[in-house]
């Protein structure tokens, strides 16, 4: 059954079916095989609905909406102009700022999809205009957004902490080191890319120009204030911060800048709804597919055959990395954590691995998997929001995946990258 499912999915995907069909077909075959007919397909519908229901997903349409309003109006440009007066004269400055902005935004919003939209939306046209190749830009946005998994607050780490009984505070701190290391590597790569491709730099801005840019961006600087101040100040949850950004964006663009009228507001809301639907039906279809994998206990069967209990520490870490990487290529990260962590927990304890290190590696793999073809929420979001073909969105991915995987390898051999800050903070 396993091969029939994955085979069908890949074939339908390559033939050019709407992406929901491979995912739905995968689960359909699973349901029919598991229950010997069509009798339980109502449960498949249940799972599609369960997939789109989680409250934390509401942040996605809200950030799409806010970003769309900001980009149509002036807010986004004024903010980017401000950044450019400070970094525009550096080689790769814009790309590095994009990576940094994705990391920061992802850290506070807790949603990689929201980050793709909110940061990538306004910055992509600027990067294209500055001379970056679109496939590089798309891959940079999608992969930088995934650093959000590692920087607190991280829903993946919370779930891992609960399932494995590991301190969530320690996990949060352990994620920071690898997260920053990845950001550093992406920055170096951006610099190399800009140099090799001769991406032109802007003339260095004078302090007068910078002051003028700050003044122009005073109102839009309210967005980072709302998001960062609101969330860390205990006023908003990340989801609510997204909604607050919508209202603030409407206030700026409709009242302060007078860039938007009610007709445009309607069109923006409709366009947000359309993108949301296109992405969420895939989230729902993915949930139904995850159900099949989970119900049929496919991971348990595969892992039972490889003799993980005979391995040493490195073998176990390597197996865990591969299992999560492959799992997240096809299935929602949260479900992968829920299914796989209990399977690995006894082995992790047996070989004496630090569960915080394991959690960090798993979170990193989850981040990599979400941006890795064939299926991944961030890829879907980028396709829907930027309206670029699938192949274009994933074309620039390999160098990023390579960097992310090398961080995973580094973590296995130099756990201090993750544990240094943790040991410092918790005096271990």
């Amino acid at each position, binding site marked *: 059954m396993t091969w029939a499912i994955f085979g069908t999915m890949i074939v339908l995907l390559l033939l050019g079916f709407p992406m929901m069909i491979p995912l739905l077909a995968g689960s359909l075959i699973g349901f029919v095989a598991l*229950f010997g007919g069509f009798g*339980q397909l*109502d*449960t498949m519908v*249940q*799972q599609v609905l*369960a997939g789109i*229901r*989680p*409250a*934390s997903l509401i942040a996605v349409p809200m950030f799409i909406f806010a970003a769309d309003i900001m980009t149509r109006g002036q807010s986004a440009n004024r903010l980017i102009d401000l950044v450019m007066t400070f970094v525009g004269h550096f080689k790769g400055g814009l790309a590095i700022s994009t990576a940094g902005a994705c990391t920061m935004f992802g850290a506070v919003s*807790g949603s990689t999809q929201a980050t793709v939209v909110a940061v990538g939306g306004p910055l992509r046209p600027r990067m294209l205009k500055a001379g970056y190749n679109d496939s590089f830009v798309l891959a940079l946005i999608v992969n930088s957004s995934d650093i959000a998994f590692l920087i607190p*607050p991280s*829903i993946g780490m*919370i*779930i891992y*902490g*609960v*399932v494995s*009984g590991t*301190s*969530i*505070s320690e996990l949060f701190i352990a994620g920071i080191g690898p997260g920053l290391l990845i950001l550093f590597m992406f920055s170096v790569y951006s610099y190399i890319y800009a140099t090799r491709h001769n991406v032109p730099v802007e003339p260095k801005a004078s302090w007068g120009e910078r002051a003028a840019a700050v003044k122009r961006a005073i109102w839009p600087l309210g967005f980072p204030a709302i998001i960062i101040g609101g*969330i*860390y*100040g*205990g*006023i*908003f*949850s*990340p*989801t609510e911060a997204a909604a607050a950004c919508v209202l603030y964006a409407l206030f700026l663009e409709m009242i302060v800048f007078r860039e938007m009228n009610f007709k445009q507001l309607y069109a923006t809301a409709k366009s947000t709804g359309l993108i949301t639907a296109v992405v969420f039906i895939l989230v729902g279809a993915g949930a139904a597919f995850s*159900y099949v994998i*989970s*119900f049929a*206990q496919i991971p348990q069967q595969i892992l039972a055959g490889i003799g993980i209990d005979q391995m040493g520490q490195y073998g176990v870490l390597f197996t865990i990395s591969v299992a999560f990487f492959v799992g997240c290529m096809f299935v929602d990260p*949260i*479900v992968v954590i*829920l*299914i796989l962590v*209990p399977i690995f927990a006894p082995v992790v304890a047996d070989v004496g691995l630090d569960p915080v290190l394991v959690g960090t590696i798993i979170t990193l793999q989850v981040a990599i998997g979400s941006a890795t073809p064939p299926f991944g929420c961030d890829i879907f979001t980028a396709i829907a929001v930027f309206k670029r073909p699938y192949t274009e969105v994933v074309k620039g991915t390999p160098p990023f995946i390579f960097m992310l995987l090398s961080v995973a390898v580094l973590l296995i051999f130099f756990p201090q990258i993750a544990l240094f800050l943790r040991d410092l903070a918790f005096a271990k």
Partner: protein
Amino acid sequence: DTWRYAFEEALEEVQGKYAQKFKEEVEANSDHTVELFPFGTLGESADIMEQAQSGILQFVDQSPGFTGALIPEAQVFFVPYLLPEDQDQLFSFFRNSKAIKELFPPLYEAQGLELLTMFPEGEVMMTTQEPVASPEDLNEVKFRVMTNPLIVESYQAFGATPTPLPWGEVYGAMQTGIIQGQENPAFFIESTKMYEVSEHITRAGHNNFTTAVMANKEFYDGLSDEDKQVVQDATQAAFDYILDYQDGLTEESLEKIMEAKPSMTITELSEEERQPFRDTAESVEAEYLEIGGEQAQAILDQMKADLEAAAGASGGETAEDGGEAMDSSAESGSDGAAADDAGAESDSASEGDDGAMDEADAGSETEEAPAN
């Protein structure tokens, strides 16, 4: 055959322990195998319940608080101070309750489910940033509660601002201060690391988290008498096991918390301090009778009778005082003095026992985790 059993908690939490024992018993005494599905692997609480109703799952563990959306009467377990704070009385109630053994099964049957058992998971405790000794201390405190009208009503009556929040956001919200309190049993506060983002644990004894195990009705009716016996025996063995397992579990969990975070304060409210909380039970009970469905009154009356019997049966001094306590709660807290006595008794009589029950609540919260 392969029987599938899903529950709302992780494998090593109370519902998971029960399920493991059940599996062990069934597999030892029959040729059937039981596959276990911990929380989140097949969906949220409501999802696995529906799957048990449609027969995809043979067994499911769902807490009555969640079942309340389907069987409104089951919300009776959210009426504060209804269940005894004394562990012997509590266990005796769950072993013998006529409400559970006779009144609830037909309600579950109407939903296509065979109610196998109900058991307690542990005393619900509040975790907050400021100490709590009276309802005044909860004034203005944004307190995270499950989305259920009775819990909302309870915490409103306690003086807090009940704030429903998806479970996945609770840890972060406690950390940043969106909310300043949440409630759970000790084992769940420990396992979900909620203590990392709280300063105080308060034991007001207002509830004990209850959960229920069911089978798909059609599946169960279709079993041979022999297999039915296997299921019943496994249910009973797991029930006995889980009460044993809980003995001391709360104290153990609280010790682990203190070890991990020595600055934590854990306060057990005295009877005088509990009284103002207890006085609010009346309004919640009234709300229950309003939204608890046709049989709400019958269930509540029977529960109170059962509890009185349990208080009488749990022996010695405690029995007498306990009996009075039950009476007082039946009168909705109007008889404060009696309740005081009973509480004081049970506190001193069974400190360790109390702890054991605290775990149960965790279940309710765990369920929501997969949603996020």
